[in-house]
């Protein structure tokens, strides 16, 4: 009798473990992407400041802003629009760049966060929030400065 009870407990524990393990695996596998628009920024910074921070020491800046699993820091960035365009997939792109800056911040919006057509203009100061993908650098092969890349952006003001 005691043996049967013990066996029942073992079976129930194993089944419970399997269900919890399966549920966790399913959750992990289907884990939704982080909603950048709903997440508080990790840093508040201007486009000039982040460009200069990267150009001064990209290793330190990468250590500060990039995450090993790709969920890197969310930044709220203020700067002046120096160009408006779109990426290959048709998402709106603005370049925030100070007049005397060697590089800028390339900000890409998503279908849901895209600013209304005509609402932005070159020279205008805006504040955006988005996730950083890479920093500014001078590339000797490209023979040009690369911009800071910010994606999944939304306009704050």
């Amino acid at each position: 009798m005691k043996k049967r009870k013990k066996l029942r407990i073992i079976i129930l524990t194993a089944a419970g473990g399997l269900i919890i393990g399966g549920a966790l695996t399913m959750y992990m596998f289907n884990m939704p992407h982080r909603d950048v628009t709903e997440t508080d920024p990790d840093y508040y910074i201007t486009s000039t400041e982040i460009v200069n921070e990267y150009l001064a020491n990209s290793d330190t800046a990468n250590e500060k802003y990039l995450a090993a699993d790709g969920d890197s820091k969310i930044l709220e960035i203020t700067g002046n629009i120096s160009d408006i365009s779109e990426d290959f997939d048709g998402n709106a792109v603005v370049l925030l760049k100070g007049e005397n800056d060697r590089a800028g911040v390339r900000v890409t919006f998503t279908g849901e966060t895209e600013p209304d057509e005509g609402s932005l203009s070159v020279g205008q100061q805006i504040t955006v929030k988005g996730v950083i993908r890479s920093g500014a650098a001078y590339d000797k092969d490209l023979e040009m400065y690369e911009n800071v890349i910010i994606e999944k952006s939304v306009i704050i003001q």
Partner: protein
Amino acid sequence: MKKKMFFTIILVTVLSGMAISQPAKRLVTEKSQIKFFSSTPAEDIEAVNTTAVGTIDRESGKVVFSVPMQGFEFDKRLMQKHFNNDNFLDTKAFPKAKLTGRITNIEKVDFASDGKYDATVEGKMTLKGVTKPFTAIGTLTINGDKAEVSSVFDITLADYGITFKKGKPSTNIAKTVEVSVNAEYSQE
């Protein structure tokens, strides 16, 4: 004396006019799409990146592409985390991949004449800090002062020291992945 000065002014004007009307030597793209595709019996995995920057030198055929690796977007967040982590591409330590090469048949591409040209690129690619020789074929479509590049090539991950020894990614990610590149270039 006056005549000499007059001709000098004319010469300078003509020369500077020529310099202005000369098309820029380089084409630049910030409008590109790089796709990574892996197929195994377990699942197909695709990721898209639209953040790369590239240049083509019309005279020498020099081609450069710099790709921010954290710009690859996956359908599933877990896949994206695996792709970025230090067992796979370690994108925090190696945030950019780079291709530098030369279009070997650049003399056959007439940038002044609209049309589609086959192009072969030879050079080297750096991925996760490892540099290996690289060859790819593609097409270069000239349309006025713009150009479009299209190419599909394979990358064997182990060549770049990218291996998953255990766990789900070791069975679900192909040993050789297909990369397709499409880019729209304009004058610098």
